[in-house]
């Protein structure tokens, strides 16, 4: 197991006061909260910050942790010495907070494992357990736009805590095969009833909520069920109009460009976005005129001819 430097995690000195620790924690918690920060590693950072704060905000735990102090560096192989915690009040384990489901092995080896049976795989800080029923779990599932367009089967693996026959709390990977229907959108929630944390005693299991996130697509930008695409066209296609091929999630289609189009013109391909049985998105194509580089003398001559025979001031609205 790796040693964790909680001071580095909170970006504070070892001499920081309790107030400084609190301030550092709150600032970082706001910055990395997974609802606010969409970076892939935000959830992990948020958990680490919470774990560091859990130890450092508690004077006893901090004192115990500080015993390891300067001799250790983050990432170093770590094994706590036997009975290292015997002089401290929390001997025997037990968290003070109820959102400690995600703390690291390092934390558990020092401060003991969680006592109650409901665990969450994610950043839920709220542990309302009604009638001893298991907590709801929240997780993200990242799919491609093509997956949403066509519908997809995904397999997801969660770390779930449960009681074994001996009544011990164990963490096990748990793999679910799920079938996502067509047309799911970014941020959409999917509930898997009964797939959350196991209940305590007679309590029923919680639910698992999955939130859909899209992998970045090289060309398409999703906007709810609509798909946005920037489409390069030639100056003559823009000037004269014409029919050009356009990629869509469902394959190539033809789009007719009206004569006299400019960069930024938006055209709609109806029904070519993400679709469910009831809702159909469209694809919006924004035109971008690309000018070919004139290389040969003949090519340059073509542009000179245009210059001579087509009076055109693109800056007229700037008054010059």
């Amino acid at each position, binding site marked *: 197991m790796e040693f964790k430097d909680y001071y580095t995690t909170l970006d504070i000195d070892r001499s920081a006061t309790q107030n400084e620790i609190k301030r550092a924690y709150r600032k970082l918690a706001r910055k990395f*909260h997974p609802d606010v920060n969409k970076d892939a590693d935000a959830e992990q950072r948020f958990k680490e910050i919470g774990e560091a704060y859990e130890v450092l905000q508690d004077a006893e735990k901090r004192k115990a942790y500080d015993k390891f102090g300067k001799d250790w560096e983050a990432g170093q192989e770590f094994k706590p010495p036997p009975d290292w915690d015997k002089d401290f009040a929390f001997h025997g384990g037990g968290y003070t907070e109820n959102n400690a489901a995600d703390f690291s092995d390092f934390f558990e080896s020092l401060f003991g494992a969680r006592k109650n049976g409901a665990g969450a795989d994610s950043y839920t800080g709220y542990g*309302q357990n*009604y009638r001893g029923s298991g907590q709801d779990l929240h997780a993200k599932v990242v799919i491609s736009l093509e997956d949403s367009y066509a519908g997809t089967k995904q397999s997801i693996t969660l770390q779930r805590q449960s009681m074994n026959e001996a009544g011990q709390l164990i963490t096990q990977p748990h793999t679910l095969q*799920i*079938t996502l229907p067509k047309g799911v959108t970014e941020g959409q929630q999917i509930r*898997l*009833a009964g797939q959350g944390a196991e209940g305590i005693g007679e309590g029923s299991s919680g639910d698992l909520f999955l939130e859909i996130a899209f992998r970045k697509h090289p060309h398409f930008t999703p906007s709810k069920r609509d798909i946005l695409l920037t489409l390069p066209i030639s100056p003559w296609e823009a000037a004269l109009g014409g029919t050009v091929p356009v990629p869509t999630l469902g394959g190539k289609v033809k789009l007719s460009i009206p004569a006299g189009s400019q*960069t930024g013109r938006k055209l709609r391909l109806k029904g070519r976005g993400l679709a469910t049985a009831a809702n159909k998105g469209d694809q919006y194509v924004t035109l971008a005129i690309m000018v070919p580089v004139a290389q040969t003398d003949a090519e340059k001559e073509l542009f000179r001819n245009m210059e001579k025979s087509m009076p055109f001031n693109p800056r007229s609205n700037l008054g010059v």
Partner: protein
Amino acid sequence: MTMKTDIQCTVFDENDEYSLKELCSTCRVHTQFIQDLIDEGILSPRGTQPQEYRFTAVEIRRIQISIRLQSDLRINLPGTALALDLLEQIEELKRSKQQLERLYALKKY
């Protein structure tokens, strides 16, 4: 490792409507909490009386984010409403930004 196949999924779609009672049991919150979110403008159900309230399923996400922001970051209700609105604006801006970046990326050719 346990393996299960073909789990029943419920996709919370904008066409699905939930009553106040259904919403509370799905999100495991009290009706008063939902009423507070309505009063703050975070939720806008159809109907004027609690018994008539109809929520779209996409509002479940707003409720869940509200719960997390309040408990993880100690944000009060007006702050939560502001954060949700700003988060939506950020999403919209990110989309526009990505579109513009793609337009400028074309100019390299």
